[in-house]
């Protein structure tokens, strides 16, 4: 009964979000020219646009993943939200206004305008697709997890449904509609975290609980945990557990005692039962007690400093390389509006991330069983943990599920628009992309089906961590291209190709290897998992060196182009590349 009311409320909320989005989207659906379709005619007011940028940026990974990381890692996990915010600052300082003036609206377009090289254009197109697909995966899986938690259906059904909805919306609506939808979805997401945080803080302060104790959190009820991915647990204090499955490589079915300070490898498919009030074991390497959870770099994971620096570089420089973020900046009317909306965006992002961080703090008290495995669900389980399974809990659960669904919808549709526009302009024959734009729906399908297919198989990675890996690839490819392309007239096409390939291949390989192989403890394993600290400088270095070596092929009009990029549009130097094309 209680489960049902929560499930019904949540499903209703999810369906409402999808329907409202579709309605707002279809109202804005009056599009003819390429420029209308792809960048909403560039007539979006800067406040509305800031809402849309924030709505698009705050993904399911941010909505679900960050609270889970805060729950486990405490102060250290602050680097994820801070990095996601600071990336906007780097984008604003180095790229936003000049790129807006370039008149290009995708990275391949920018590369073409700056260096006029078909080869470079192809390489950029490939990496836009790779980055976009990798980024879509955790979004689709987040949608699947949301559906699976509120209804009990298998996760892949939710992922498949989410994929189908987004494909249909984008193929039919284009970006004009998406702009309004996303501004709406930002406020929905903010509300969906604000309400549980306020309720949770009131309850927490009323309970007099603090996090300054030298103890691990305790189970609030008798709790059963199903382990789905391999995990090593550390018991700070002795705990009695009833296990059914495989622990430490041997089959078990019955009570075990984990002594203080012991470590246990738990295989997938194992059920663990804990008693009320017992100390919660944590995953190996995470801070084991509340007091050290509050202090930065206090876990026992090796090479934390290196990992943190690498994460900062990836998030800081990666934002400017994300296809949907760049595309969204073109909807500002000029460079000045782009700057203004960036300030509003940062305030909006900061507010949201602080609330999500507080969600993580609350979940350490209210849903500590997530420390054992699967911390992505923290945000979704908090409502019932706060208010119980009655009507109040069901309503709150519905609000949060709607927020998670909005987070998924907004980022995925933005990404898909960017990917489809790249497919239309760069991979389809000229006839298919004429004025009528029959090609766009087809391009959407082509761009969207592969990630949906891959997302049906689950991965064990926290969503926010998975997204951070994509940031590393973006930071190693498009960041050097954009920064050097905008600020250094010595860049050549061969240099750009070599740099993008070097950074992209190294970072993408590292990401794949670290996903396939279980993490070791050496510095090398950390670098595979957080490659940015190596791959970003490498990409810059290769780009500069090869450019210097191929000085002769420097475009003769590079100086003029840079002038055009840095002089405000009222100089009349900018030309809209879309005008050239239509």
């Amino acid at each position, binding site marked *: 009964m209680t489960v049902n009311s929560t499930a019904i409320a949540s499903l209703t909320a999810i369906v409402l979000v999808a329907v409202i989005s579709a309605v707002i989207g279809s109202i804005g659906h009056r599009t003819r020219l390429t420029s209308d379709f792809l960048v909403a005619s560039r007539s979006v007011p800067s406040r509305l646009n800031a809402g849309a940028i924030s709505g698009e940026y705050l993904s399911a990974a941010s909505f679900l993943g960050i609270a889970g990381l805060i729950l486990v890692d405490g102060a250290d996990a602050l680097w994820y939200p801070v990095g996601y915010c600071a990336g906007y600052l780097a984008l604003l300082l180095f790229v936003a206004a000049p790129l807006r003036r370039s008149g290009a609206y995708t990275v391949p377009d920018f590369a073409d305008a700056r260096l006029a090289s078909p080869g470079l254009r192809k390489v950029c197109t490939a990496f836009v697709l790779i980055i976009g697909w990798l980024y879509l995966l955790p979004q689709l899986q987040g949608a699947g997890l949301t559906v699976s938690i509120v209804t009990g259906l298998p996760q892949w059904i939710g992922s498949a449904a989410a994929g189908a909805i987004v494909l249909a919306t984008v193929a039919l609506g284009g970006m004009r509609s998406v702009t309004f939808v996303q501004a709406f979805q930002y406020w929905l997401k903010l509300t969906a975290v604000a309400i549980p945080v306020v309720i949770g803080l009131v309850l927490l302060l009323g309970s007099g609980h603090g996090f300054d104790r030298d103890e691990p959190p305790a189970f609030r009820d008798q709790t059963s945990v199903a382990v789905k991915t391999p995990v090593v647990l550390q018991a700070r204090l002795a705990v009695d557990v009833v296990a059914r499955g495989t622990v430490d490589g041997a089959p078990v079915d019955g009570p075990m005692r984990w002594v203080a300070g012991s470590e246990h490898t738990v295989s997938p498919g194992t059920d663990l039962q804990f008693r009320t009030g017992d100390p919660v074991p944590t995953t190996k390497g995470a801070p084991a007690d509340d007091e050290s959870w509050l202090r930065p770099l206090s876990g026992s994971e090796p090479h934390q400093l290196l990992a943190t620096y690498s994460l900062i570089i990836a998030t800081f420089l990666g934002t400017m390389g994300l296809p949907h973020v760049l595309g969204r900046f073109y909807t500002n009317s000029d460079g000045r509006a782009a700057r203004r909306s960036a300030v509003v965006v*940062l305030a909006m992002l900061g507010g949201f991330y602080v609330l999500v961080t507080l969600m993580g703090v609350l979940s350490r008290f209210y849903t500590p069983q997530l420390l054992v495995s699967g911390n992505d669900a923290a945000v979704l389980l908090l409502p019932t943990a706060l208010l119980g399974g009655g009507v109040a809990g069901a309503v709150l659960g519905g609000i949060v599920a709607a927020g998670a669904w909005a987070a998924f919808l907004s980022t995925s549709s933005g990404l898909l628009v960017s990917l489809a526009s790249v497919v239309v302009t760069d991979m389809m024959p000229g006839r298919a992309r004429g004025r009528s734009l029959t090609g766009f729906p087809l391009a959407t399908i082509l761009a969207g089906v592969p990630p949906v297919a891959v997302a049906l198989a689950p991965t064990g990675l926290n969503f926010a961590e998975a997204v951070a890996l994509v940031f590393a690839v973006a930071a190693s490819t498009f960041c050097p291209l954009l920064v050097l392309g905008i600020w250094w007239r010595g860049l050549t096409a061969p240099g750009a190709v070599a740099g993008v390939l070097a950074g992209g291949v190294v970072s993408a390989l590292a990401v794949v290897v670290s996903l396939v192989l279980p993490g070791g403890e050496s510095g090398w394993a950390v670098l595979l998992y957080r490659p940015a600290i190596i791959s970003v400088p490498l990409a810059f270095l290769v780009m500069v060196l090869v450019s210097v070596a191929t000085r002769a092929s420097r475009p003769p009009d590079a100086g003029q182009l840079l002038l055009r990029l840095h002089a405000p549009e009222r100089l009349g130097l900018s030309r809209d590349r879309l005008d050239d094309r239509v």
Partner: protein
Amino acid sequence: MSSVDQRPTGTIYEQVQATPEFRAFRGRLRRFVFPMTVVFLVWYLAYVALASYAPGFMAIRVAGNINVGLLIGLGQFVSTFVITQLYVRFAEREIDPAATHLRGLVEEGNR
């Protein structure tokens, strides 16, 4: 994609580029953007360094559950926002007027 011949080629642009006003304009922009980048990078990296080498300092209790490390960590959001506002104010006060002046030069030249 024949973008080369679509680029502005008039000599007036080269002339503007050579003027001291334009150089001063570009210099001003660079003198703001690059030092600002250094400042906030140092601020972020210093936090990590403090956490690693001065954990005692970061663990000092300020009030209840809140320690110095958490305050500085959350302060990163604030500082990011402040730097952004500084930049936008700088751009509107310093860059836009200079650009308007340059525009005058271009229009005179085209006449």
